[in-house]
């Protein structure tokens, strides 16, 4: 029983670390996990679920705005990108956030083709992250069901990605 739990915990930790290493998540996700406790065990799952709902809604509305080449509402697209960038930043969805940065640039110069490419990319990235996090939450559930505790392991993005210039920490 103990070795089953230990194995699952190891799996969880390794998987979590890999998500940081591959740039899916950054330190804001760590902050999110720190806010979760015994009283609020579903906090992270709830917030990311709201985020994915947001993604879906915003991508749909931006897609409609970009549909007709002769009549693109760039203002609406810009608003959508702004919201998406904000919420992805708030949950630590690093790759999604980075696509939004490029997306905004395309919007600023009213590049419809560029916007469509970014839209496709952001759609891909959020769905990919959704799958990854679902796997992570499944591992958590397996640990709990096996009678174990979820490791309070908080990977640091800046340590796992020394190639990326760290933020200036006061």
């Amino acid at each position, binding site marked *: 029983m103990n070795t089953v739990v230990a194995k699952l915990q190891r799996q969880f930790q390794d998987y979590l670390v890999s998500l940081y290493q591959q740039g899916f998540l950054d330190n*804001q996700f760590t*902050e*999110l996990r*720190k*806010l979760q406790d015994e009283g*609020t065990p579903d*906090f992270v799952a*709830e*917030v990311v679920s*709201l*985020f994915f709902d*947001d993604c879906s809604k915003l991508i749909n509305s931006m897609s409609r705005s970009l549909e007709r080449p002769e009549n693109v509402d760039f203002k609406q697209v810009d608003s959508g990108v*702004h*919201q998406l*960038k*904000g*919420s992805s*930043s*708030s*949950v630590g969805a690093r790759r999604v956030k980075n696509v939004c940065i490029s997306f905004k640039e395309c919007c600023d110069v009213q590049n419809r083709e560029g916007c469509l490419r970014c839209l496709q990319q952001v759609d891909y990235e959020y769905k990919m992250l959704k799958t990854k996090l679902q796997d992570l939450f499944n591992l958590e559930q397996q640990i709990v069901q096996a009678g174990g505790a979820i490791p309070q392991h908080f990977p640091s993005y800046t340590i796992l990605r020394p190639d990326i210039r760290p*933020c*200036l*920490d*006061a």
Partner: protein
Amino acid sequence: MGMAAAEWKFHVLAVDDSLVDRKLIERLLQKSSCQVTTVDSGYKALEFLGLRQGIESNDTTALSLSPQEANLIITDYCMPGMTGYDLLKKLKESSALKNIPVVIMSSENVPARISRCLEEGAEEFFLKPVRLADLNKLKPHMMKTKLKNQKLEEIETPSDDENGTVAAVEPEIKDSVEMEIIKMLPLQSETEPKRVLLQVVQQEEQMLSNNKRKSMEQGLSTDRPRPSLEGIATAV
């Protein structure tokens, strides 16, 4: 010493049009032992505080029959309709609400925006995503309000001139705030283990440089003194 019968909690009204961010700020504030109410617009915030629509906010009859109390208002800057700045202005124009401290949050580091908000009377400006360490800057406000409430409860003579009484206990509150800040230093160390904080002055510098950290990423200066921290500096 008179103590409140029920457990009093610092009540924060959080305003943000993003559901994700509302969830986040709510949790951050709860984790910092605050009572939280969230609304999704400036209009709803004003409604909550009792300002009726269409009535001049500096009209003393503008408050509705049952305004709800907030000890601090934290609002996003970029919101459709009424921006955080618009909300800030309305609050400062209201004689009933102008003394409630207001904090502005924004995902964008625009120095002109920051200055404008601080000049209009915002206490703090937080860059998003907001973290637990940022909320430590609110602790002085929380302690001050808590102690003020406790002191006012101890005052039993109803005919006392409230101003005079409050002024008389003011220095004591400051000392207690100092004491509480020193006691709170270990708490800040928990979230930022690399820092060793020994004195209130160091903590003040830390608070300023937390803001600087985020602004410096974009190479901007935040040397503007924060009005809310000056009192603490001189108390030391």
